[in-house]
């Protein structure tokens, strides 16, 4: 079988954090090659490099045996590479037919538009993809699965020989998945190759010929699908070097700090979430991206107030309608995307650290800059933040240190409940271990900690109990002794009972 695409020795770093390390990957004609790995293993980065959206720091790409030194999105398209992402990228204000035409008629700026032909072609392609969608509808009015089908129609229309599907079924129902699979069969029969990325392992086994596992930015295994079974695959996905030790020590739990009962938030797709966390406890929250973990944190923190259910703090029912109320109730939230929601990059370390607790460093309404500095210096020392001084702008620090500054801001509010969302995402290994040690230290001081993470080893290593979420609600709770990677994955992928 001819090799359609081969990537060899691909490396890529983002601001000092290594995303890919000498990854090699190839795709044969008529093959479905699955790419699996945990969140953050480097799958997305790899496809971005293959489609020219990002440039590799090192390594070579070859399409049909010819080296492509400078891949760009336009180049990728002309080479017959099409990508279908988890999040469809349609133009909301244009019709379905126009969306399809845009990608297929690129470069014909001055040509008159044949609207009838456009419509006909769109209808044909949608038909081929097995979707019953009116080509005249605006893309913005389509549901997620419908948008996904339009993306597939685009790929068919482009006569793509290399189709990359990134979580294509994340928003599809069973019948639509069946249709997708028949489209995959069609593409493959025509000699195309498909790179299939999915968290849903049963699909991977159903559809793929070969599987490559990415872990921490490295391709750790490439095997024929027939030669590997599910437990072995999961183990390959999550396997860690032995020196990755978590500083977890058992501590006596205190009283219940926070309990939520039947919490719902329709706007965020959250329903009937019940959980509790005690003082001194680390409650891990696991689940796939989009399962409602971050939404749960945002609801508890009052960013998007709940529309049903109850939040109890130390046994007392409270209403939390805004972040400032949550802060007053002793809740702190270190959000996921620290650049967007966490730190203020243009402000110095000291001002960032005091932002949520300005009253504590103010006297008579005036910020006492000396007190602010002293407080910040205390945290720099305690959290071992590596910064030239507390007046350095946070934008100049590394990811791990930015995260620690975000943590300092919230610790300075004197919280009783600390919600951490992906506390070690995009943080290098050393800083990761320090943050883990900090979490343990905080729990020992009696804080109730809710730790959301996509990294199963982190969840297993740090948590006293693990809540697993699926589709906006809790699909299971595991005690530390019951929690294993397989069980968590099973609950996250295919819930037994809600």
């Amino acid at each position, binding site marked *: 079988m001819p090799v359609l695409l081969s990537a060899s020795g691909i490396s890529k770093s983002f601001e000092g954090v290594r995303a890919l390390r000498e990854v090699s990957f190839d795709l044969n004609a008529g093959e479905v090659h699955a790419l699996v790995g945990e969140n953050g293993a480097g799958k997305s980065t790899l496809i971005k490099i293959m489609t020219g959206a990002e440039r590799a720091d090192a390594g070579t790409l070859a399409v049909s045996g010819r080296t492509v030194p400078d891949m760009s999105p336009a180049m990728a398209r002309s080479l017959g590479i099409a990508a279908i992402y988890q999040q469809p990228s349609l133009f909301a204000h244009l019709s379905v037919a126009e969306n399809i035409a845009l990608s297929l008629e690129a470069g014909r700026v001055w040509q008159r538009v044949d609207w009838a032909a456009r419509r006909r072609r769109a209808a044909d392609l949608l038909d081929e993809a097995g979707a019953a969608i009116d080509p005249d509808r605006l893309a913005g009015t389509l549901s997620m699965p419908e948008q996904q089908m339009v993306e597939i129609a685009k790929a068919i229309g482009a006569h793509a020989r290399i189709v990359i599907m990134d979580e294509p079924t994340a928003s599809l129902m069973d019948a639509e998945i069946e249709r997708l699979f028949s489209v995959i069969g069609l593409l493959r029969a025509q000699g195309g190759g498909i790179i299939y990325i999915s968290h849903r392992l049963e699909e991977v086994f159903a559809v793929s010929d070969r599987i490559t596992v990415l872990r921490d930015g490295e391709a750790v295994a490439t095997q024929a699908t027939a030669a590997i079974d599910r437990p072995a695959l999961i183990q390959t996905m999550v396997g860690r070097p032995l020196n990755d030790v978590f500083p977890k020590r058992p501590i006596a739990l205190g009283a219940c700090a926070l309990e939520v009962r039947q919490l719902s938030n329709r706007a965020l797709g959250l329903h009937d979430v019940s959980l509790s966390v005690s003082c001194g406890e680390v409650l891990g929250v696991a689940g796939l991206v989009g399962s409602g973990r971050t939404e749960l944190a945002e609801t508890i923190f009052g*960013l998007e107030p709940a529309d049903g259910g109850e939040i109890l703090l130390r046994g007392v029912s409270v209403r939390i309608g805004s972040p400032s109320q949550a802060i007053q109730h002793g809740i702190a939230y270190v959000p996921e995307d620290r650049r*967007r929601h*966490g730190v*203020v990059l243009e*402000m110095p370390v000291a001002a960032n650290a005091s*932002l949520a607790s*300005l009253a504590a460093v*103010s006297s008579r309404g005036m910020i006492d800059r000396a007190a602010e*500095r002293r407080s910040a210096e205390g945290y720099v020392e305690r959290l071992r933040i590596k910064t*030239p001084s507390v007046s350095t702008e946070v934008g100049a620090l590394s990811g791990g240190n930015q995260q620690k500054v975000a943590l300092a801001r919230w610790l300075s509010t004197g919280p009783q409940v600390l919600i951490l969302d992906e506390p070690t995402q995009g943080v290098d290994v050393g800083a990761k271990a320090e943050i883990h040690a900090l979490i343990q230290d905080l729990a020992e001081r009696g804080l109730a900690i809710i730790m959301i993470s996509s990294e199963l080893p982190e969840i297993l290593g740090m948590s006293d109990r693990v809540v697993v979420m699926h589709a906006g609600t809790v699909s299971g709770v595991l005690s530390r002794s019951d929690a294993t990677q397989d069980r968590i994955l099973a609950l996250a992928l295919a819930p037994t009972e809600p």
Partner: protein
Amino acid sequence: MTRTETAASHVREWSVASAIAALMLVLTVAAPGFFSRENLSDLLLANLPVLLVAVGMTLVIITGEIDISVGSIFAVCGVASGLLSKSGMPIWLAGAAVCLLGTAFGSLNGALVAYVGIPSIVVTLATMTALRDGLRWATEGAWVQDLPRSFQWLGLTQGRYPLVATVVTGLITAALAFGLRHLAAGRAVYATGSNPAAARLAGLDTSATRTCVFAILGTLTGLAAVLNAVRFNQIPTNAGIGLEMKVIASVVVGGASVTGGTGSVLGTVLGLVLLAATGPALTFLGVSAYWERAIQGAIILVAIAADGIRRPSFRRLVGAAAGARA
């Protein structure tokens, strides 16, 4: 306040101050007449109202918003001060009422931006047009004349007014500069402009912050209109045309970024001094006054280009281009 912070954040203030110093040096040598008491006093009195508005605009721009309706608010408030005064109200009371009127207009702008979620450029474009044309319709273009004697110079003597106006403007400017640096509210202004999501998560009320900065700008515009109106014996209905551009230019030259999060009152003061001095300086140097706007435009371009070059996205662009060539 530390060395690093000073060095990092005061680059712009120093460069604008240097530009002013250079201009002054040239004038000292080539046209010492510029420094005559009358000329300086004229320049000062004409620009005190602009300074008040510019200081308010600094707050708005730091929060990442913009207000182009200040010229219209200025005109409406000026006319209102004259009409109230003519109706027999003491000038001090009329002045206070006009400041409140400005506050009301500013709050309206702010509430539409912060709570309805309309972009500030659109909101203030609408209020700019509505107020300007509303005024034209109401007055039919007629200037306010026959003002009571007490209106002129706020009822003070021609000698005392400049002192009072300068002190009032100076105190307000200093107070806002202090508040921006030392009050929690000032921190909220910077945080809202720099990263609204993070500011909200930190428990700051970003909507209230936005509304307040617009309201403050409205108040200061009202006050500026009064201070300006009392210098003349009639009030034009077309006052303040182009004021918004003058003010925004001063703020931007002073180092505030229109994307929010940076800027200082001191920078704005220096920016205004540089831009306001350019025109008269040209006259004294014997250069045609027609060059005034062109040179001011060039100053703004230089300032903005300096911002762009320092921005990481620009560095990445340059880096990528260099990488592509390599």
